C-alpha cells in the first residue's frame, strides 16, 4: 500500500475540467515531481490532495483511507499534509517564529514553551536561527520560502506538497531552497513537487510525472522521462522547456 494513492481524481471549475481522471501512487519517502505547462493542472492537483479544493470524482487514499469522501472534516487531514506555496504566503503580521508556532499551538494545543524547542530546532537545521525574530518583509525571497517550509514542517506532517516553490525567486536564491528540499528527502519525507526546475527534478526525483490537459501523459524514473521520453507530447514539452 503506497503512502498516497490517487484513483481517477476529477476536478472541474465550472465547465472547465482541470483534472481529468488522475491516477498516481506516491510511496513512503519518495519524491515525485510533477512537470508540465502552466494550466496543465499541477497546482490544482496538489490543492486537491490536501483538500483545499473539493474533488468532483475519484478517491484519494492516505495510508489506505479515502480522504476525498464528501463531507469529511478536512482539518485533521490537512494537519498531516503540509503545503508550501509559490508566493510563500507567510503571515505578514507575525515574526518568522510566530508564523511557525501558530499551527502547533492552535491545532495541536501545545503551549508556547512546549512547541518552541522543536520549532527552533527546525529553524537552526535550515540555517535560519538568526532570522526567527524577523518579520517577513525583512527577509529575502529565499529566506521567506525557507521559513514557509519550516512553518509547514512544524506540524510534523507525513507528506509535504510543494507548488512551484522556486518560480517566484531570483535565480541566485533558488539554490538555497533546493538544498532544503534535498535535506528533507534525505530525512525520508514523502514529497510531491510541482516544479519547473528540470535540472533538480532530474537529479533528485524518484519519479517524474508529465501532465497535460489534466491527465498524466507519461510517468517514470527521471532518466527515462527526461532522457528517452516515450510520448511525443513529452518530447515537445521538454524541448521547449529546456531551450
Amino acid at each position, binding site marked *: 500500500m503506497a503512502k498516497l494513492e490517487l484513483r481517477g481524481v476529477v476536478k472541474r471549475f465550472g465547465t472547465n475540467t482541470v483534472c481529468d481522471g488522475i491516477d498516481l501512487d506516491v510511496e513512503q519517502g519518495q519524491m515525485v515531481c510533477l512537470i508540465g505547462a502552466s494550466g496543465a493542472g499541477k497546482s490544482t492537483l496538489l490543492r486537491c490532495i490536501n483538500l483545499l479544493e473539493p474533488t468532483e470524482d475519484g478517491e484519494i487514499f492516505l495510508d489506505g483511507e479515502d480522504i476525498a469522501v464528501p463531507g469529511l472534516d478536512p482539518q485533521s487531514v490537512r494537519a498531516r499534509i503540509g503545503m508550501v506555496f509559490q508566493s510563500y*504566503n507567510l*503571515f505578514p503580521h507575525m515574526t518568522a517564529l510566530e508564523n511557525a508556532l501558530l499551527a502547533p499551538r492552535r491545532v495541536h494545543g501545545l503551549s508556547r514553551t512546549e512547541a518552541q524547542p522543536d520549532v527552533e530546532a527546525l529553524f537552526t537545521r535550515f540555517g535560519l536561527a538568526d532570522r526567527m525574530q524577523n518579520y517577513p518583509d525583512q527577509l529575502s525571497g529565499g529566506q521567506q520560502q525557507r521559513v514557509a517550509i519550516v512553518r509547514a514542517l512544524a506540524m510534523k506532517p507525513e507528506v509535504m506538497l510543494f507548488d512551484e516553490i522556486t518560480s517566484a525567486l531570483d535565480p541566485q536564491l533558488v539554490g538555497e531552497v533546493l538544498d532544503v528540499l534535498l535535506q528533507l528527502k534525505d530525512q525520508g519525507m514523502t514529497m510531491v513537487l510541482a516544479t519547473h526546475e528540470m535540472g533538480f527534478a532530474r537529479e533528485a526525483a524518484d519519479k517524474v510525472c508529465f501532465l497535460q490537459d489534466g491527465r498524466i501523459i507519461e510517468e517514470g524514473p527521471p532518466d527515462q522521462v527526461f532522457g528517452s521520453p516515450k510520448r511525443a507530447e513529452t518530447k515537445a514539452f521538454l524541448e521547449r522547456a529546456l531551450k
Partner: protein
Amino acid sequence: MTQDKAAGMTRRERFEAQQRRRSLVIAATSTTLVVAALVIFVPMSPGWEKVQKSFFNGAVLAQTFPKLLDAFLINVMIFAWSAPAIAVLGLLIALARDAKSPALFPLRIFGAAFTDVFRGVPVILTVYLIGFGIPGLGLPRPWNSPYIWGSLALILTYSAYVAEIFRAGIDSVHHSQRSAALSLGLSERQMMRDVVLPQAVRNVVPSQMNMLIALQKDVSLLSFIGPVEIFRQAGVFKSLLANFTPYVGAAIIFLFVTIPATRYADYLMSRQMRERR
C-alpha cells in the same frame, strides 16, 4: 562658507541651487502679494464691517470662548465612549454578515438588515427616534437619559458603516493567506482570528479614521435632544448676543481637533499606498 562650497560644487549643483533661490523668491513674493491684497481689499468691500461685527467679532469671541470650550468637553466625552463601542459592534456585525454556518443564517439576515437600515436612515432621524422615542416608553431616570439613547443612536448608525468597512478589509486579505492558514490545519475560526482579522483590521485603519472624524462632528446631533454640547451652546450665545461669532468660535474649536486627525488619517493612507507598491 558658500564660496568654499561653490568652489567644490559641480556645474549642475550650482545651477540647481540658483534655480531653488529663484523659486523661493518668486513664491515669497507671490504669497506676500496675495496676503496683502486680502488684508487691504477685503475690509474695503461693502458690508465687510457688518460681516465682521456679526461673524468675526473679537470681543464676542473672547467672551464666549471659555464656555464653548466647556461645552466641547461634552462632545469629547460622548465621542470617547461611543467610538470604542462602535469599533466593537462594527466588527461583530461584519462577522455576522460573513457567517457561513447554516445555523447562523438568522445572524446573517440580521446583519444585512442592520446595515441596510442604519446606513439608510438619516442620522438625525435615528437620534430623534431612539433618543426621544425609547425613553418615551416610560423608562425611569437615569436610564432614560438622552446621553445614553442619543449615544446609542450614534453607535448603531456608525457601526453599520464601520461594519461594511471591516467587511471590505476582510475581503481584501488575499485568499492565498487563507490557503496557507487552512493548509496548516487551522479551522475556519482560527484562521479568521489569527490570520485574517489582524490583517483586515490593519488594512482598514485609514478608512476607519475617516469614520472617526465624521463621528467627531456628528456628536453635535445630540444637541437636538437636550445635551448642551458646543453647537447648542453656540446657539444659546447667538440668541443672547444676536451675533454669529460663537458659531465661528465653535468651528475653530472643532478644527483644532479635526485637522490633526485628518492629517494623521491622510498620512496613514499614503503610507499604506506606498507599502502596497
